[in-house]
Each structure stands twice: as structure tokens, then as C-alpha cells.
């Protein structure tokens, strides 16, 4: 597949790598070249600078550069009138569906990650990373329980002079419902369906941690590594959604606030065989 499109959005794919290569808000005539893929940070087990390993409390990768789960994805397209989907398979434990429903003013990414393999002896902290050319000047935004949006500046704190010793973890922030980056004209917002950690480690990039599986305790009290084994001892699988919105800066809040509320208070689906009997409270 090279693209999917509805009346509001178009998503382009690189035919060689199978990865997303751009999104377009057709209604507002905004285009943003980007790449999106899954990477993992190799969890630190302690080094010369600090013996602190990555664990339940502490996120501490042993390198600032995440490793790609795969350089490309095997993809196929499902195209109907109500929904268009590109299924991307990155590895045996990482896949994603890029989805556009009819009349839908956002792009849906449904990711499935796990069980994270640990046979190589490496703890892994898996992220979904979006890279764009937006000139963000080290600034990104995360929400605080879906209420106040906080401006975050890379390698900086608002009220004291920071000596940054952890270039990745020191720039991670809680994301309860959304994270966004913007330049003067364009804003890319990502809504989450659960609380995650997120950051913008480089200008124009945006990342969210979707899953982690670690081999060592971080010596902060829990006394065991973050190593959920699941039913068969191979680790657990998580499936979640990220919703992408591309908009003009001054109009973006209208879209992401409305959609985030709809995600947070989403409709309840109830089913029945339809063989009920008449009922009244009397």
C-alpha cells in the first residue's frame, strides 16, 4: 500500500519500507512528512557513572539511541467503504494497524506489542517514535491528568538549573491523555488510551513508551524486576491505540480536547440475544 485516504485525512506509506511516510489534513490543506516506527531502549544494568539499573521505578536506558524493532514492516492493505486499514508487521512480537474510518477526523494507530523477548539477556523498553521535520526548538507539551497542558523544555526545568545526567530518561514525562509538538504553523498531537511515558528527545520527534520488560530490580523498594510473565512465562502482550491529529496551531486544541474527551468517556457497548421480556419497575 502507498496510501489510505478518507475525506479528511490521507496517510502515505513508503513502498520500500512499509512505514508511514506522511500525513495530510485534506480539510485544512496541511501536509507533514514523517516516519513512524517502533524502537526499544536497552535497559541499563548499571555502569561506571551509576550502579542504578532500569526497573519498575527507574527508566534508565544504557544508550541514548533506541534500536529499531525492524527497519521495515511487512504490510498489507484492507480497503472498504467504511474503513481503510494498513496492517504492519514489524516482528513476531510487534505489529500495528493504521486505520482511517469514514468521516473520521483523525488517524488511528492500533499497536500490539509483546511478548517482549528476553532471550538475549537484554531488558527492553519499547517505544513508538514519530519523526518529523517540525522545528520545535526543544519544546514539547504533555498533559496533566487531561487538564492543564504543561510545556516541557528539553534538558531544562522551569524553577532550577538542571544538570542533566540522563539525556533520555531525564526528559521523559507522564502522558495521561496527550502529547504534542508544534512549530509556528503546524501541530501534531497524539492522544493515548492510557497513561504512558513520553518525550521529544530530538527536535521534531515524539515518542511514547508502550511496553517494557526488565531483568533486574532497581533497588528502590519493590524488590523484583518488572518482568511480567503472563500465562505461559513468555511475557504479556499489550494492545492500545494512539490517535494522530494534524492541525493549525491555533485550531488544534479544539480538535484534541474534543477527541480526548470522547476517548476518555467512550461509549459502552452492551450486547444481547434480543430475546428479552417486557419489563417495568412496577
Amino acid at each position, binding site marked *: 500500500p502507498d496510501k489510505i485516504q478518507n475525506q479528511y485525512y490521507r496517510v502515505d506509506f513508503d513502498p520500500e519500507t512499509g512505514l508511514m511516510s506522511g500525513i495530510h489534513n485534506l480539510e485544512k490543506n496541511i501536509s507533514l512528512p514523517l516516519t513512524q516506527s517502533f524502537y526499544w531502549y536497552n535497559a541499563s544494568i548499571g555502569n561506571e557513572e551509576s550502579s542504578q539499573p532500569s526497573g*519498575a*521505578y527507574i527508566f534508565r536506558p544504557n544508550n541514548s539511541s533506541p534500536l529499531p524493532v525492524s527497519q521495515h514492516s511487512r504490510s498489507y492493505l*484492507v480497503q*472498504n*467503504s*467504511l*474503513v481503510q*486499514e494498513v*496492517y504492519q*508487521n514489524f516482528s513476531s512480537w510487534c*505489529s500495528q*494497524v493504521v486505520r482511517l*474510518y*469514514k*468521516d*473520521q477526523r483523525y488517524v488511528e494507530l492500533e499497536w*500490539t506489542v509483546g511478548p517482549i523477548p528476553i532471550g538475549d539477556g537484554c531488558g527492553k523498553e519499547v517505544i513508538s517514535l514519530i519523526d518529523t521535520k517540525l522545528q520545535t526548538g526543544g519544546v514539547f507539551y504533555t498533559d496533566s491528568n487531561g487538564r492543564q497542558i504543561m510545556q516541557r523544555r528539553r534538558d531544562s526545568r522551569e524553577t532550577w538549573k538542571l544538570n542533566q545526567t540522563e539525556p533520555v530518561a531525564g526528559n521523559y514525562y507522564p502522558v495521561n491523555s496527550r502529547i504534542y509538538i508544534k512549530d509556528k504553523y503546524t501541530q501534531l498531537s497524539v492522544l493515548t488510551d492510557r497513561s504512558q511515558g513520553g518525550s521529544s528527545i530530538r527536535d521534531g520527534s515524539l515518542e511514547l513508551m508502550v511496553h517494557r520488560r526488565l531483568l533486574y530490580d532497581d533497588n*528502590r*523498594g*519493590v*524488590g*523484583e524486576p*518488572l518482568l*511480567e510473565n503472563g500465562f505461559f512465562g513468555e511475557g504479556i*502482550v499489550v*494492545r492500545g491505540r494512539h490517535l494522530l491529529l494534524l492541525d493549525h496551531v491555533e485550531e488544534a486544541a479544539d480538535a484534541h480536547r474534543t477527541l480526548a*474527551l*470522547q476517548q476518555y*468517556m*467512550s*461509549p*459502552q*457497548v*452492551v*450486547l*444481547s*440475544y*434480543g*430475546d*428479552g*421480556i*417486557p*419489563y*417495568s*419497575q412496577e
Partner: protein
Amino acid sequence: QSNSTVMRRAMGVAQHHDAVTGTAKQPVNNDYTLRLSQGWDSCQVVISNSLSSLTGIKENFAFCNLLNISVCHVTETANNFKVFLYNPLGRSITWNVRLPVNGHAYKVIGPNDETIPSEVVDVSDFTKELRLYQGRAERELIFQGQIPAMGFSSFTVGKLSLPDRFVFKSKKGKKQ
């Protein structure tokens, strides 16, 4: 008897900082999960009673908690079923419904007896693999439902038999 207190208690326990951040020991996390699950089971009775009052029909309501991996006993096994969508928002919305099914085509009737456009797509191999032995749906039924503000819509879904031109005939003349 319905009671939302079980969920309120579970939510109260889950305010502990270890529950919020996931830094508890694994058996403690399992206990948080169990309490929330029991709370949700209890709330399902509350919702069922409410829906019975609102619709005037006492149904055997089902809440498919594994819809995210395309598992739902009702929709997988029944030829006809009803779908209720409750919208807690203060504005009407359109919601995309995806239900695991085994038929090839379905007719969806909306709250005003109108036919709602629907499609059936295959469940991905990845989903089939990860749901293990829990569900057997080969396909998913997709339709878009309009739901009023702070209210509900009900949809009736019926399996369609394929027209004859889609049914292969073997050399022996038996329909397959």
C-alpha cells in the same frame, strides 16, 4: 441486586501510589487487577438494570470485555443479536463498532428502523494468534452508530445468507 460500591472500593485501593505507577510487587498488582475486575462485574449489573428500565425490556445483557482481541461469545455464535451503545458525553457522536462474527454478511437495523451500512472484514492473523483459544471469530462486523447525548441507541443485527451466485457447487452438485 446491583451495587457500584465494589468498584468504588477497588478504585479507592487503586489510588495508592504503587497502583497508579505500577511499582507494586507482581502479586499485589494481580490483586489490584482482580479487585477492579470484580468491581466491573458488579457495575455490569448496575448497567443491565438501568438499560432494562430505559428500554422496558429485560434482556440477558452481555459485556464483551475482550472485544479488543475480537472475542465475544454472543456475536460469534448468534445469527441475530442486539447492540446497545450508551454515550456518556453531553453531545451526540458517531461511534465505530467492531464485533467479532463468523458470517459473511449482516444486516444492521438502526434505532429508527433504518438500514445501517455495514462491512465484514477478516480478523488479522496476528489477532488470531494472540487470542489463543478464547475466540473463534474469523471476521469482524463494522458499522457506524449514531448515539444521542447522554443516551443510548440500539441496533439489531441479523446474519444474511449468501445469495446462490456466491455458493460454490461441487462436481457432485452438493452445495458447499
